[in-house]
């Protein structure tokens, strides 16, 4: 069972309180983009066995979207952070490095 903390309202709850929103930090492509870029935006996913950045919504709480860094192999949560960013904040990166020294951010 996952326990997540919402960085907006600060509440900690188990997963039924939240709604999973898929991979985080996708670059959005729309009209005028190439077919490959549009496919990458819509369908291609990192799907790693290990550190994964993803979007969650505090559905039965404050209702806000936020980001979570989580390990898909152990379900360990490294931390949650604001949705208003397109990069992984430094304190989350160091929290992951502390637990997974071999981990490198994906390009």
């Amino acid at each position: 069972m996952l326990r997540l903390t919402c960085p907006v309202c600060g509440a900690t709850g188990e997963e039924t309180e939240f709604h999973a929103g898929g991979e985080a930090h996708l670059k959005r492509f729309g009209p005028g983009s190439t077919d490959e870029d549009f496919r990458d935006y819509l369908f291609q996913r990192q799907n790693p066995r290990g550190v994964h950045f993803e979007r969650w919504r505090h559905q039965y709480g404050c209702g806000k979207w936020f980001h979570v860094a989580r390990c898909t192999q152990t379900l360990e949560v490294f931390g949650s952070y604001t949705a208003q960013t397109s990069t992984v904040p430094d304190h989350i990166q160091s929290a992951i490095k502390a637990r997974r020294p071999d981990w490198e951010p994906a390009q």
Partner: protein
Amino acid sequence: MKRYSAFAIAREAFRHHTGWERAWRSPQPKAEYDVVIVGAGGHGLATAYYLAKNHGITNVAVVEKGWLGGGNTGRNTTIIRSNYLQPSSMAIFEKSRGLYEDLSQDLNYNIMFSPRGVMMLAQTEHELRAWKRTAHANRIAGIESEMVTPQQIQEMIPIIQTAGPRYPVLGGLWQARGGSARHDAVAWGYARAASNMGVDIIQQCEVIGVDRDASGVTGIQTTKGAIRTKKLCIVVAGNSGVLADMAGFKLPVESVALQALVSEPIKPALDCVVMANTVHGYMSQSDKGEMVIGGGADSFNNYTQRGSFHHLEETVRALIETFPMVSRLKMLRHWGGIVDMTGDRSPIIGTTPVPGVFINCGWGTGGFKAIPGSGWATAEMLADGAPRALAAPFALDRFTQGRMIDESVAAAVAH
């Protein structure tokens, strides 16, 4: 290979069963193979079998990081049906169901195929309309399926409650020649028959890297050393993303956990497979008497082979309304498998951006029923270097072209 037969049982009975052979060889990997298949689940083993049987290609290795049939092949709820909506899905799933019909004879291994019938319940008006549309599509494609009324369902399945206030049964799509089979036996049967024709099945051999040069794939690195090959086929279900990453391309796939559970064994009470897609609940009774129940998939990426408890609770809570007797059953075991969900919830069989690397993945929550047809189509592709008619619609480039195979809308859930 000694053939299994009634005579063989009698012969062995007279000599204290000392003459049985191992079902398949366990060789060390050779330095080079014509084809290397990663993943000894049902789809990988079926591919190897049809490569050898239909195309005469026997210099083949199937490498497996764990044990044969230990992934989703051994974790599913063994439902076999082909009443899909889209022509390309109907073609491959009906090919598959047809192959299941005489697979025991073909493999000389009893896979316990039981065409007991599959009932897909319609529990909303939308579902009722969708099933009617599917029934017409099936009729045009020559697949035997028909709509049945709640009264007929009540007669066929006495333990069902059709008048439930929240999930009433409004009708059903009945496929009489659908059913189930023993999942382990499907993997073991294919392994035995393929091994007998010269295919090397190498277990406990994890792929740790894919070698390639400018012209394409040249081999793989494994925990049992390097293996050279010009044709590599990735058939690893939930781990497809990890293998694709090693080979150097991305897939439109996400891996999530799907769960199932079985009850204590009871006397025969349910003689067909029932699917309730609205509530994500599937139920059938095994030959041992256990109720085999399949649930819904988790919504977040997961490689742990454990699912969330609340999904089981939702599945069982909804099933209890349709089958009140389930509330008195004790559940014995529950487990999870990692399924690879594609963007359109239909599988991928095709070439990849890396020359010489082929992929068969994305069967999501419905791969068991497709094992023979998928193996057949993938073997054709590996033999020719390009997919034939059965596999062609499932190519990877459909996501670039926007040519989706929209089954998830048809089935209300992913298969």
